[in-house]
């Protein structure tokens, strides 16, 4: 099964080049082939998840076997957490690519759009499967550069400005990460993740390793838009074409931000409680400030982008609580519960925030505006968009029986059990603010006084409708993961993969 790992990188990378070359001559080739490719990859990743369970796969690129137990060459490795991320990336990529079938007609040069899309997914899949820190940097940059270009795809004033801002901040983040990797190599003399963990665990903490930790925290903090570093996210995520916004907000900040952060601080460094407190603080700050900034927005996609910052804060906060408990030798089961809540919320957020951005894309497709004040009364003329966005809004606000309710509940229960009562109260308050945010979105977009366009508009084409309905069903089905059978099958391998190295 380990021979399948390179396919997740090779297939999208190959199709990126094929699409860029052939897309101009064969119309419809890219619009049909690319969703099928991602459908295949998502089926493959689900199959891997069903068969993998608690084992770790390792694939040695080029057949370079370890010499005397020291790894040479690049290793690809997949454990429960990477495979879960592969499932999220590829299924959302399939849905976004299928949605783009109709949406991309607004733009010229659609084949370049699909080529960059494939390149971005190749980079993200690479980040998920790699076991080598420099290789991780290379894949991270592939995904990031493709996303810079995709943000500027509309080449209007706002898109270009957002892309420039994103590139400068993203570039600083990447350089911090590269610096951290250099310092880590200097201190340990190896690039393999498992090997670094072994060396760091067997020696005393040196200043070099602490410095590398600080640099990596700053770099991945910028990539995942935690609060002191968040200023690029609302611009970039609101200016990109909507399927790309769904990918950026739903997957990209998780795979090249949160995933790497958790991977480094749980599996590579020996955790210290100071770092864990810093991570928790960053999470709480993003959660609160993101929600408050979102209230003032009248542009739908900016509102959704700020709420992404806030929801990412939940994930980081609960992972931080888990790390604090593991460092202070607290209750292992509560720590597992906190990490479980974080990963569950990460998965849920990918689906409901993806759906919300696709809803915003449908509104923009029909109305040619993103301003909430110019909408109203669209519930009757756009029934599918309206009802699916209602589902997503209830999921993100945490109303049962949708998935967001259960993951927030787990996070709050974990915070209470670990003794952080203040954090639990903050999480509840932010959840209420999120509810008010999405009531505002529903009220101004779909209900209330009908705008002049409300009666004349019809709903969006089939591919866009179908995607939104599928995602809404996913939002409902994912709440099943709270039951022990599905939880042990899908989420617990990821939790154990993160905790094993730390204990």
């Amino acid at each position, binding site marked *: 099964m380990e021979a399948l790992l390179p396919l997740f990188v090779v297939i999208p990378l190959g199709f990126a080049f094929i699409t860029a070359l052939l897309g101009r001559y064969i119309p419809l080739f890219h619009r049909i082939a690319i969703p099928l490719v991602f459908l295949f990859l998502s089926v493959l990743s689900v199959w891997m998840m069903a068969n993998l369970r608690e084992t770790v796969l390792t694939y040695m690129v080029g057949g370079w076997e370890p010499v005397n137990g020291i790894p040479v060459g690049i290793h690809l490795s997949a454990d429960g957490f990477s495979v879960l991320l592969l499932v999220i990336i590829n299924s959302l990529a399939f849905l976004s690519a299928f949605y783009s079938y109709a949406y991309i007609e607004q733009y010229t040069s659609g084949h370049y759009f699909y080529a960059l899309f494939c390149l971005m997914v190749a980079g993200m899949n690479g980040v998920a499967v790699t076991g080598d820190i420099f290789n991780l940097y290379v894949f991270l940059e592939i995904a990031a550069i493709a996303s810079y270009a995709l943000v500027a795809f509309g080449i209007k004033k706002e898109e270009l400005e957002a892309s420039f801002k994103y*590139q400068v901040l993203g570039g600083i983040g990447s350089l911090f990460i590269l610096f951290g990797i250099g310092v880590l190599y200097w201190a340990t003399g190896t690039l393999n993740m498992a090997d670094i963990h072994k060396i760091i665990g067997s020696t005393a903490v040196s200043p070099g390793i602490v410095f590398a930790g600080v640099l990596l925290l700053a770099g991945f903090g910028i990539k995942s838009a935690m609060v002191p570093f968040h200023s690029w996210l609302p611009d970039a995520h609101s200016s990109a074409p909507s399927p790309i916004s769904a990918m950026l907000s739903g997957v990209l900040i998780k795979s090249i931000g949160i995933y790497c952060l958790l991977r480094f601080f749980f599996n590579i460094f020996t955790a210290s409680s100071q770092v864990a407190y810093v991570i928790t603080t960053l999470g709480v700050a993003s959660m609160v400030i993101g929600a408050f900034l979102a209230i003032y927005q009248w542009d739908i996609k900016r509102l959704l982008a700020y709420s992404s910052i806030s929801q990412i804060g939940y994930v980081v906060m609960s992972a931080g609580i888990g790390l604090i408990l593991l460092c202070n030798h607290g209750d292992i089961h509560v720590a597992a519960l906190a990490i479980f809540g974080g990963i569950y919320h990460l998965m849920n957020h990918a689906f409901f925030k993806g759906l919300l951005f696709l809803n915003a894309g449908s509104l923009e497709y029909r109305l040619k505006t993103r301003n909430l004040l110019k909408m109203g009364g669209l519930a009757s003329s756009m029934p599918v968009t309206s009802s699916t966005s209602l589902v997503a809004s209830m999921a993100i606000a945490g109303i049962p029986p949708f998935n967001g309710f259960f993951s927030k509940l787990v996070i709050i229960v974990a915070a209470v059990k670990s003794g952080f009562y203040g954090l639990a109260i903050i999480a509840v308050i932010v959840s209420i603010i999120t509810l008010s945010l999405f009531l505002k979105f529903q009220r101004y977009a779909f209900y209330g006084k009908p705008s002049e366009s409300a009666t004349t508009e019809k709903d969006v084409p089939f591919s866009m409708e179908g995607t939104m309905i599928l995602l809404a069903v996913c939002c409902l089905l994912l709440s099943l993961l709270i039951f022990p059978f599905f939880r042990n099958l899908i989420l617990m391998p990821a939790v154990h993969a993160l905790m094993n190295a730390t204990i």
Partner: protein
Amino acid sequence: MVLFIMCFILFLVGLYGVITRRNLIKIIIALSIMEYSLNLFFILIGYRKGGEIPILKDAGAVPPVVVDPLPQAMILTAIVIGLATTALLLAIAIRLYRKYKTFDVSGINALKG
């Protein structure tokens, strides 16, 4: 050690430039300075005093001290990535200049809040 500290100072010079400059082209130059300082840093990690090039000359005759080849390979990759980022940044800067007729950041402010 002095060289490492100077490398770090160069990195900070670049960071200062990115934060304070208001011209798009100068921001791009400052980012490149940061990148070059990291390239130097990686080469310094691999350096061994009196080391030779890491190539086996005759059969099995290993030189006593060789420089570490891995950071050199890594930095070749990083230079290529840096080229891609800089090219994309410059392309966007030119497009921005055509829209706004200026390279000044304070004149480019369509996005707020």
